[in-house]
Structure formats: structure tokens, C-alpha cells
């Protein structure tokens, strides 16, 4: 009779025919006993290390993710943000969604390695479950994170230019060497590597399965393009119409119908609405338009700089969500945050920003308000155009910049303090930075106001937008990630 013996190295399968001697039988039995002990001892040992409370599905898997630096995460974001800039279709709302799924994937993939933390499944819309790490599985969290982020990046940016795909592959491949401090070979046995990468990819695949049903998937695909081409703008006094110079069709008119991450945030944070549309001089609406025109006819040098700094145009920058992700990335690096902290912060902030865009687009197309250039040309000065930039091709109220900056700032304040000075290096490469801000709130308000200076938003859209954004940020902060005791 043949006995099949395996050792702990699954790539080596050893078939040992038994010796027909008593000593051989004894030897075999002893060996079996040793094997059994080894197999049982390892998870026991790791469980002893864990401080998780009974009841958690992933009790004491393998080490604390907080022991590792945030480098894996921050390195991926440092590559993904410029990639977003160069990937077709990554307009501001789309880019925000991309960053949110990346961050959520990161968080969920290492959740088992954050003692006392729980998954966001059950709290996010229609997300019931994700693959959990096996309780007795040793995983190396940076490896997991690396695999998850790599897989998600490829799936979220399938049409990134070829050179970026090569960079993604190189980053994933070289991460263990580049971040050797986090990638201890003693910990990263081949089995651990395989299990960690498998787990990371499983989480990524499951997350994408969920992501593909949110309405925002494959923005450049034929279904979406046809759906958007069937949209007909409402008509009437104050209604949005295409704006000069290119008079383009409205962008992503159905984005507001996407499934948000947080089911209740939209209703809870709905803005109050713009002033009543009125073309008569002296009316509140007229006065807001007059403010836009006056400020942008002769902007100060400071105003010009601010308008351009926060423009965050797609194709030229990582977009507004990318701007704040850049800020967070630098904060995490400067403060030498650990992987667990990084995952939670990225997740909350990017979820807040993505939902901010969905909520903004929903209101934009419901209210369907015309842009300042249309109103000013009709009512005040037929030759006026915003001097600093083209009006974006979608309705005015509220201001997307204001909502998403308000959301991002609210989340960052919570983690880093409300009066924390910080340095923004997002546009260093363009020669516009760094810029220091007294607080996250101050930066968000400057980002919001930049749209007035640019001549493309009324005051109400900005003020209400920041408020709406802070509310959405608060909703993201209210997501429960600690286990109940």
C-alpha cells in the first residue's frame, strides 16, 4: 500500500512507497505525527499572537497590518494618479470612482490584518460580502495589498496607455525589492506569497464584480455612450444650454443615477437649491451673476493663480479627486503612517469624494441650471466669456469642486486635525507649488472659490456645495470600521 505524504511546501509532492520493514513503518508513523503537529501548531501560534476578539471571522490570521509602512499603498497611488491623468475617459467623476474602488479594495484586502477592524460590507450599497481571509491562513499584508492594488488598477484602467500598463506591471513586480523594509523574505515564504497574492486577487475580483453593476463602469463603452447620447436637456427659463466656445453636449448626464457607495448620504446631504431664476436687475440671481462677471473681468494675480491651481482639468492633471488623493498620499508619507492607517484613510476619503460626485451630478441634472456665461451674455454683456478657462460642459448647480473638496477636507480634518497646516505638492511638477495651507478647510474653501474666480460658477453653487460636501464627508466618517465590543 502506498502512503501519500506531503510536506509543507505545496510545490513539492513527495510520493514515498513504504519500506517493507518494521523500522520503516515506525519511521513513517513518527513522521506523520510530526507533520500533524506542525500543521496544527502554526495556526495556534499565530492565534496566540492575535488580540482579536472571538466572533471575528478573521481572528488572528497573521500579524498586524499596522506593523508595515504605508509604502505599498502610497507607491501605488503615486503611480495611479498620473496614470489617471493620461487615461482616456477619466473625467473628474470617473476618476473619483476609480480611486474609491482602489482604496476600498486596499482596505478590504487587509482587513483581516487590522485587529478590531471590521469590513465595510453590509454598510455600502448592495455590498453584502467579500472573500475573507481564511482564519488559519498566514498572509503577508503588503503582499496582499500589492496584489489587490495591481489587479484593481488593471481592471479599473483597462484603456491606460501601453507604457502605463508596463509601469503597473513593473511596480507590482519590483515592490518587494523597492520596499524591502516591509517585505522580509523570512516572512514571505513561497506559500505565504501565493496565499497572499491569491487572497489579494480574490478580493479585487469580487470587488470588481460588485463595481461593474454601479452604473459607472465602462464609461467609454457602446452601451454607456448610446445611453448618454439619448439624453435631451430640459428646456425653459434658466435651463442649461451648451456653452461657448465649443457648445458640447452635456457630459455624463446619467452619472447621478449611479449607485453610490453610501446609500443614505445623498438624501441626507441634499443642498437647498439656487436662488430663484430671475433676469431682472437687482434680483438675487442677477446679483450673483454680476459678482461672477465683476470678479472675472479683472481678476487679481492671486485670483488667477488660484483659479488655475485648482482647475484640475482632466487630461492635464489627476483631476480634483486625484488632487486630494495626492495631498493624502504626501501626508501619509510625511508622517510615516502604517499600512492599516493608510488603508482606512484612503477608503473613507475616496468613498466620500466618489459619492460627492454622484450626488453632485444628480443635483446638477435635476436642477439643470444655466452657467454664468449663458446668463451674462443674455442679460448683461453679450460679449463676455470667462477669461481664464472654458466653461465645463454640464449644468451649474452645485459646484463639483466645492462638494468634493468639502468632502475630502472633512475626512482629512478628522484624521489629521482641523487646524493642521500642510503642504500641497500636487502641482510641483508643473511649477505651481508647493503651496502651504493653514488647514484642510481653508484649502477646500479656496478650491471652491477658485470656480468663482474662473467665472464658471455662481456663489450659491459654491457655498451650498461645500456644505453638501462636508455632510457627505461626515457620512463617510460615520461608516463603522471598529468592531463592537
Amino acid at each position, binding site marked *: 500500500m502506498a502512503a501519500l505524504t506531503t510536506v509543507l511546501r505545496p510545490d513539492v509532492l513527495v510520493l514515498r512507497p513504504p519500506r517493507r520493514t518494521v523500522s520503516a513503518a515506525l519511521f513513517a508513523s513518527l513522521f506523520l505525527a510530526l507533520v500533524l503537529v506542525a500543521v496544527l501548531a502554526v495556526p495556534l501560534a499565530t492565534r496566540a499572537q492575535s488580540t482579536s476578539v472571538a466572533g471575528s471571522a478573521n481572528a488572528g490570521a497573521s500579524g498586524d497590518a499596522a506593523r508595515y509602512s504605508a509604502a505599498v499603498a502610497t507607491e501605488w497611488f503615486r503611480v495611479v494618479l498620473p496614470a489617471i491623468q493620461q487615461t482616456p475617459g477619466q473625467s473628474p467623476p470617473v476618476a473619483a470612482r476609480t480611486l474609491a474602488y482602489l482604496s476600498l479594495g486596499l482596505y478590504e484586502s487587509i482587513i483581516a490584518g487590522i485587529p478590531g477592524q471590521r469590513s465595510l460590507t453590509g454598510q455600502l450599497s448592495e455590498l453584502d460580502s467579500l472573500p475573507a481571509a481564511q482564519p488559519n491562513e498566514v498572509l503577508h499584508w503588503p503582499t496582499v495589498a500589492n496584489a489587490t492594488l495591481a489587479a484593481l488598477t488593471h481592471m479599473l484602467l483597462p484603456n491606460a496607455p501601453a507604457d502605463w500598463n508596463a509601469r503597473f506591471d513593473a511596480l507590482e513586480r519590483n515592490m518587494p525589492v523597492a520596499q524591502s523594509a516591509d517585505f522580509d523574505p523570512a516572512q514571505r515564504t513561497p506559500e505565504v506569497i501565493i496565499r497572499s497574492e491569491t487572497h489579494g486577487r480574490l478580493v479585487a475580483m469580487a470587488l470588481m464584480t460588485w463595481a461593474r453593476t454601479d452604473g459607472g463602469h465602462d464609461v467609454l463603452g457602446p452601451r454607456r455612450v*448610446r445611453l448618454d447620447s439619448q*439624453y*435631451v436637456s430640459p428646456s425653459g427659463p434658466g435651463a442649461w444650454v451648451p456653452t461657448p466656445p465649443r457648445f458640447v453636449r452635456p457630459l455624463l448626464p446619467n452619472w447621478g443615477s449611479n449607485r453610490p457607495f453610501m446609500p443614505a448620504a445623498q438624501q441626507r446631504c441634499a443642498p437647498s437649491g439656487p436662488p430663484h431664476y430671475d433676469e431682472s436687475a437687482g434680483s438675487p440671481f442677477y446679483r450673483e451673476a454680476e459678482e461672477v462677471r465683476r470678479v472675472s473681468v479683472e481678476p487679481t494675480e492671486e485670483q488667477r493663480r488660484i483659479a488655475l491651481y485648482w482647475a484640475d482639468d482632466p487630461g492635464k492633471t489627476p483631476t480634483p479627486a486625484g488632487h486630494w488623493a495626492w495631498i493624502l498620499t504626501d501626508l501619509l508619507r510625511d508622517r510615516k503612517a502604517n499600512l492599516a492607517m493608510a488603508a482606512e484613510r484612503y477608503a473613507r476619503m475616496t468613498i466620500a469624494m466618489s459619492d460627492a460626485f454622484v450626488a453632485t451630478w444628480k443635483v446638477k441634472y435635476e436642477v439643470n441650471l444655466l452657467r454664468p456665461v449663458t446668463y451674462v451674455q443674455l442679460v448683461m454683456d453679450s460679449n463676455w466669456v470667462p477669461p481664464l478657462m472654458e466653461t465645463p460642459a454640464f449644468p451649474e448647480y452645485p459646484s463639483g469642486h466645492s462638494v468634493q473638496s468639502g468632502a475630502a477636507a472633512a475626512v482629512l480634518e478628522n484624521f489629521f486635525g482641523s487646524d493642521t497646516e500642510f503642504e500641497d505638492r500636487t502641482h510641483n511638477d508643473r511649477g505651481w507649488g508647493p503651496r502651504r495651507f493653514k488647514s484642510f478647510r481653508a484649502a477646500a474653501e479656496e478650491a471652491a472659490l477658485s470656480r468663482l474666480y474662473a467665472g464658471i460658477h455662481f456663489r450659491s453653487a459654491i457655498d451650498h456645495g461645500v456644505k453638501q460636501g462636508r455632510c457627505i464627508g461626515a457620512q463617510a466618517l460615520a461608516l463603522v470600521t471598529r468592531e463592537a465590543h
Partner: protein
Amino acid sequence: MLRAVGLLALALLWFVAPAIVRSQALPPPGERAGAATVPRVPHFVDETDAAGVQSRFDGDWEYTVGGGVAAFDCDGSGLPSLFIAGGVNRSKFYRNRSVRGGALKFVQERAGLELTSTLGAYPIDLDGDGTLDLVVLRVGEAILMRGLGDCRFARANELWSFQGGNQWTTAFAAAWLGAEQHPTLAFGTYIDRSQQDFPWGHCTDNQLLRPAAGDRLGFAPPYALKPGYCALGMMFSDWNRSGMPALRVTNDREYYKAGQEQLWRIEPGVEPHLFAAGDGWKPLQIWGMGITSADLDGTGYPAYFLTSMADNKLQVLAAGAGRPEYRDIAFASGVTAHRPFAGGDVHPSTAWHAQFADVNNDGWTDLFVVKGNVGNMPDFAMLDPSNLLLGGPDGRYVEAAPEAGLLNYQRGRGGLLVDLNGDGMLDAVIVNRWDRAKVWRNVGAGSASAPQPIGHWLQIRLRQDGGNRDAVGAWLEVEASGRVQRREQMVGGGHASGTLGFLHVGLGEATTARVRVLWPGAKLGDQVLVSPWFDAAADRSYLLDRQKGLAPWRP
């Protein structure tokens, strides 16, 4: 033998050829060629820049059609000011500051008419207050702009409970039907805008807005005139002189399925009836872009000119006034205008606005056809000049645009022949897609510095009490030199372009004329709803008031 034949051929050529050449050439004006007198050609001077008109009609898909102009006197000066549609650009209002009889001058003014997404407009006094209002056709909501006097306008959709909808509105016509105080409005719509990828077969319904009951002006909710076949021109016209106009709709065969030209009988309190083959209405499928009408043969029944791609149509009644059965006499009349007459492009034409009017004041109706490529359609003429076809007593028309100096090689769309400087000679406006609108001054037989009318003329403004102040639906008759010329007062027609003000009539050599009006509702030969004959002196503008009679018109 061969040599003999060759010599004979040469001899024939020597004697016959000059005769052939002579017969083709346009004889000097006034000389008799055959049995007819050749019309004298008026001169037009391009005064777009000098007049200060800077208006462009721009836009993509939804602005392939439209591009109209409205001319109307909004300040009592007697000189029509201009509203020019802009497409994606704002529409513009140009106040007429021309010197009477002199150079054209327009000043852009803020009149409340600065609107987005405009395709064209028609002036009409909707509320009967004596001040012209403006119906604006748009991509999106149609807007009724109420005239406030002194060339200021305000939106009145809500005031008049007018539901402007959210359609691609490309045509308009209005009439006061029966004894109704307030007008019935008909809007032509084009294509369902949500079907941009595949518009064929997606024409939308036209809209009929009847006046609501009551003394104040208001409109009932829109009634869908089905089926819609992508209308680009409409007019209410009394085709059979029964006193009740019918609604003619010209449709673009490019986008409809199983469609045709349409004639609707629309009467108060009765369901609209679409004339069919059984009524005598023969199916006709054209790329209908514009429509104009005139009594060309003196019978009192209007002929209809329909613009299209390649051949245009000129329809006259074929079986009497009892049936709307028409036959096409475009070829016989020389008005097919199916390809460019100049410029060297041999592809077929695309014609848009058309208008019957007397541009040389010789008493014979002429025909103005605005043309231009749809966009960059390679199978149709790219250099497609607009036509100025001069009519004569033999019913034939001759092309005179090059000689007249009225050459427009841009993508013409809407346009108008209208007297802009009060000198009795009809000037021209053309709105061009992706280019500037242009205006020309008619200087007759003279020059820009010394204009000289070719023939005598009359301009008559109609007036009556009640809601239908301008007597829309009335027929003006002018008798001079032993003939009666007729003009139907109407709101609609052309291509997205309209004017309402003086009815212009050329008198040729006659220095006096008799005028009268068959008021709205009058049948041909009506004895009751008709004014007495009034004597009028030539080269004057008159006001013919139903209650007060004929009087010289004063600003």
C-alpha cells in the same frame, strides 16, 4: 464628296450659328425677344459690413436646419428691424437706423430678444394690442416674446399659458380661424433629439395650439398633429379661396418613413382633417425645406413653390378649387432651379427659403430662392448660389442673380425680401450656416450713391379692430394697368423666416392704382367682407384700415 459635305457644313455654320448664339443671349432689357419682354434687372449692393450686421448662425447637428430672420417694424418708424437667429450663438436684434432711401444701417440693441438655441422667428400681433410680438423657434422650448413697444420684448409663455414644449421646432404658421378673436398656432417639429444615432424614422409630431376660451389671450394645451414627417416649412393659406385657410406642411423625406407633403383642414371646434388621395391630394415626397405662395396667373388662387434638393416644385391647381389636386409647372416656368447657375459646381442644389415678391417693381412676381449645402454633403453642390428669378407676363422666369449682384455662395438658409430703407424697393437678407448673415440694398437701376427705382410701387399696411389687428388671412387686391395683383396676408412660410408689415406691390409704369381688401373670411368674389375700391398714388406707403379706409401711412 467629302470635301463638298465639309464645305456645306461650314456654310451652314456660318449662317446658322450666329442666329443660334443670338437667340441664347439675353437681349438688352426692354427689347422684345420672341413674344415676351425681358425683365429689367435690379442692382443689389452688399451692405453687410457698412450696415453693421455681424451675426453668425453656428452649431452642429441640431442646427443643420433653421437659420432664419424676422423683419418687423417695432418702433413705428416704418422701417423693419431684424431679429437674426444664431443657433448656438445668441440671437441678435438689429434696430433699423437706415436713412429713408439711403444706405442701410443697423444697430445691435438689447431688446430682450437675446435667446439661446434659436432657429428662426415670425412676427405676429398675438394679443391684438397693436404691437407686434415675436414667435421664436428653438431647439428646446418655443418662446412667445411679447412686444412691449419701442423694440423691447419680454417672454410671455406663462402670461399666455403657452406650453412651449421641448422639441426641435423648425416651422411655424398662424391664422385667425373663423370668428375667433385669438390666433391658432401651428408649430412644425423635426426629429426626436434622443435618437441622434439613428434619426431616420424618428420624426416628431407637429403641434397645434388653439386659443383658449375667454377674452384674454391664452392657449389650450398642444394638440399633436399626427403623423409628423419632419416639417421644415408651414403656412396657413386659403388654397381654395373659401375664406378658411388650410395648413400646408412641407416635409423632409430624408428622415420620414412612408411620409409625404401634407395639407390639413383646421377649423374651430372640429377635429383637424388631413387631406388624402381620396380628396384629390396626390402624395408628393420631396426634401421639403421651405414654401411660398402667390397668385401668379391672376385667377385668384395661389400657386405654391416648394423648395427641395435638386428639383423645386411649383404647384398650381389642376382640377379647380373643389379639390386640392395640384400639378407641377416648375419646369415649364423655368423655376426648377435644380443646380447652380454659376460657380461651376455641377451637383444638384439644396434650396431652403423661398419667397415670391416683385424685386424690380415691374408688376410681375419674381422668385427668390436661398440655397446652400446642408453641411459638407459631397453629392450636392458646395458652391450653391441663391437664385433671383425674375418673372414676366409669359409665366416664365429668368435667372438674374449674377447680373443683380445678389450672389451668395455660402450655405444660405433663411432669408427675406423686404424693404429695409423705405424706398419701395425690396432689399434682401440671407442667413448663412457657419457664416455671417448678409444684407443687400436694392438700388434699382441706379447705384449705391444714386439709387433709381425701375418701376412704380405701392406698400399697404392692413389694419382692423379686434384681435386680428393686421388682418391676417386677408387678400389685398391692387388694380393697375388693366390687371389685378393679389397678396395674401399671412404669418408663416419661407424657411424659419417671416415678415409682417407692408404688403409690397410693383406697379410697373402705372402711376396710380386702385386697391381694396377682401377681409379675413372672405371668399373669392365676396361682396360682403370686402372693402370698397380706393384710389392710390404710386410710390407711397398707405394704411388701409377696415374701419377708416385708405390713408397715407405716417410713422
